[in-house]
């Protein structure tokens, strides 16, 4: 047997997952692998489209250079099956007969209709099948052309992510399908609890559009519940007022929460109100001690500030003057200094870390968030377990194309076994 992962550990040891997804669903199977399940990545003979998804490494040629594949196929065993052939469909059926879960995302590398989920469930009534789709398995947009970006747009996550009048902005690593993949794993487990009662599997469907809607903080409900210009009131819409009554503590604004430091940026909302106003009081206290705060702001209590703003005792220009003082105070500070002060003074702020800085941060390293694996002899870095303090599997590197065909599909052509 392979040692692509130590499957003895983990809460889901003993379950088998068939993963037929491409780049649009790989994370779901990997979540099972982290918990100890035996996850078999099924690819078409030419290889998963995810092997041609960036970012790419420089130390190998296509299709062995996809770091997307490295990141999300790690921990799985890999087989290739030609679903255009009856023998291949038989191979899939045999695997499905002993599987607990099957996850698919209509990989166009597989021939249309070759994955007959209903037939697989008829043959194995305990099987849970999961489909990850763009808009849904049916409905008016089911067949719409889509990319991650257009789905992020459809799900409401894109619209409010912006800086003033510029176009809404999306993360540089597309996110819609990853949200859907994570929901696919959760939905599969929910169906598993139904199966524990009845012994029967069922079908689970998730969509990239509705999964993206998780990334909206429910602002998308403002029209149905009748809150006009809600995003403007948060300060993120095109007609946003500069000063708003944001009582959240987190702030939903994006660019306006970024402050320039000596070596980068700081994320900080000048929170006010009962939930988080006391954090801003502590920042003001620090500024005062350093002689960086004008007397006119000394008596501001940020917990009760909303009432004074509503009473128009405090108005926009004053807040802007205060922001100018905060900006001047922060401009000479470094990320490391602010991080240390956030801990020491219990401030509500954080430096905007780069990927490189995260990987060097002792806190994240100490917590085993990054591990090096071998993938076909090349070293690849994958992230560690998503939850700590529970048994979790150290994943092996992503499988090469058909790496486990012999051990999983058997050396003999399956057609002979059937005959």
């Amino acid at each position, binding site marked *: 047997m392979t040692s692509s992962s130590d499957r003895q550990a983990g809460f889901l040891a003993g379950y088998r997952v068939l993963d037929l997804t491409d780049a649009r669903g790989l994370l779901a199977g990997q979540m099972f692998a982290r918990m100890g399940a035996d996850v078999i990545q099924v690819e078409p003979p030419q290889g998963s489209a995810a092997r041609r998804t960036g970012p790419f490494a420089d130390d190998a040629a296509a299709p062995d250079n996809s770091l997307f594949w490295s990141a999300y196929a790690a921990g799985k065993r890999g087989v290739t099956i030609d679903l255009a052939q009856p023998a291949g469909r038989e191979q899939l059926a045999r695997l499905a007969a002993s599987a607990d879960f099957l996850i698919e995302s209509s990989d166009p590398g597989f021939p249309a209709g070759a994955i007959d989920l209903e037939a697989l469930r008829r043959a194995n009534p305990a099987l849970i099948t999961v489909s990850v789709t763009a808009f849904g398995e049916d*409905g008016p947009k089911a067949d719409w052309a*889509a990319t991650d970006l257009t789905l992020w747009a459809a799900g409401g996550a894109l619209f409010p992510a912006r800086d003033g009048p510029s176009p809404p902005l999306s993360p540089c690593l597309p996110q819609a399908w990853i949200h859907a993949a994570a929901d696919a794993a959760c939905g599969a487990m929910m169906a598993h609890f139904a199966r524990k009662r009845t012994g029967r599997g069922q079908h689970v469907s998730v969509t990239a559009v509705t999964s993206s809607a998780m990334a909206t903080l429910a602002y*998308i409900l403002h029209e149905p519940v009748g809150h006009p210009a809600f995003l403007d*009131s948060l300060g993120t819409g095109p007609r946003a007022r500069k000063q708003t009554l944001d009582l959240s503590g987190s702030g939903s604004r994006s660019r306006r929460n970024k402050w320039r430091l000596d070596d980068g940026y700081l994320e900080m909302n000048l929170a006010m109100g009962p939930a988080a106003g006391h954090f801003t009081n502590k920042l003001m206290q620090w500024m005062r001690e350093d002689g960086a705060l004008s007397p006119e702001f000394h008596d501001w209590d940020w917990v009760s500030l909303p009432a004074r703003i509503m009473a128009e005792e405090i108005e926009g220009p004053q807040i802007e003057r205060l922001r100018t003082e905060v900006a001047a105070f922060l401009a000479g500070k470094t990320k490391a200094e602010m991080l240390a002060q956030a801990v020491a003074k219990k401030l509500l702020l954080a430096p905007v870390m780069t990927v490189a800085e995260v990987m060097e941060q002792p806190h994240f390293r100490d917590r085993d968030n990054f591990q090096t694996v071998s993938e076909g002899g090349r070293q690849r870095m994958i992230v560690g377990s998503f939850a700590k303090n*529970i048994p979790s599997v150290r994943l092996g590197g992503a499988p090469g194309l058909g790496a486990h065909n012999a051990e999983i599909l058997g050396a003999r052509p399956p057609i002979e076994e059937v005959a």
Partner: protein
Amino acid sequence: MTKPLAGLKVLEFAWSVAGPVVGRALADYGATVVRVESGKRPDVTRLMGPFPDGKIDKDRSALFEDYNLGKLCIALDMGNPAAREVIKDLVAWADVVSESFSPGQMERWGLGYEALKAINPGIILLSNSLLGQHGPLSKIAGYGNLGAALASVHSTVGQAGSPPVGPFGSYTDYTAPRFGLFSVLAALDHRDQTGEGAWIDLGQSETAFQFFAPLFAEQAATGRTTTPQGNRSPEMAPHGVFRAAGQDSWVAIAARDDADWTRLAAEIGGPLTDPRLSHLAGRKAAEDEIEAAIGAWTQAQPAEQVEARLQQRRVPAHVVAGSAEMASDPQLAHLGYFIEVERLSGGKTTVEASRFMLSETPFDPAEVAPPPLIGSDSRTIMCDFLGYDDRRIDDLVAQAAIC
């Protein structure tokens, strides 16, 4: 059909978003979820909205309602020792405890994992924090926007060469509940087989690493640190968001491959039909000009028309939907994504449906309780779940433990 989680008992101290979203999903599928809240310190999402008519009202926040549908609520002042005795009885009652206090706070109240385990050996404790329970930075307080900054998520959104903008809201609140829910369900399955409980340490920031894992692999393999490039993609051109006619109206357009491009260029015409653009490399070299030409075309017509014309030609395009566009979206209506539910303070409100659809045991909004008000179920919980008599309950009220 019996719901998947019928009989499961969940005690939720979690607040804001990441923890409550887990409880909402458990309630959707049949769990009994008891939220502990205090009138002294309402959940922050009760103050955030959106609200009907834009009026701040802690009993009518759609954000709170969305993430707390189907739960019951007991109002307890955690600072009151008598309240903590009630908590201990609820721990004995529960299968799962979900909390999102600062690391160490539960221990200070005498409610750390070891204490909970002494009360209920099989208890599953989900601790949701910004940076995990242990480690040099674990004491940092904060919301998901800070978690996202610390996890480098903010560094992935912005215009090329400009300060980072970051995604909307508190991104690690979006990533964490997926892993919280999955971990709890896996732990419950393990407990069914072994009787063992678990303490799940979920650091919100760390869950975001899962959603951006390829960027860490890229950093390690190539030494290149990701920087945002607006909406551009190394693998597609065009790949952008374009202004349409009308106020604040945008449409997202991408060509997945050369065939998409050919159809897109045929629809728009003009200089885009230049054969030098028929391959990705040619389009990447001329991306500024391509975006300008597409933008000139889109801004002369409504976003819906752009979307329809390009979808007609099987080119990925979608209106950049806000709340109004989503509320009237035929596909979301087909999926039944926005659902009306009763509001305890009167009338109806709208929340999102479950994000996973189960064929045999579907989420049914008609079978779940309305979003709770603070303490709306205090008496029911103490009487029916804990077996307290009226006198004991009245005592607790008199001691201000219930408030």
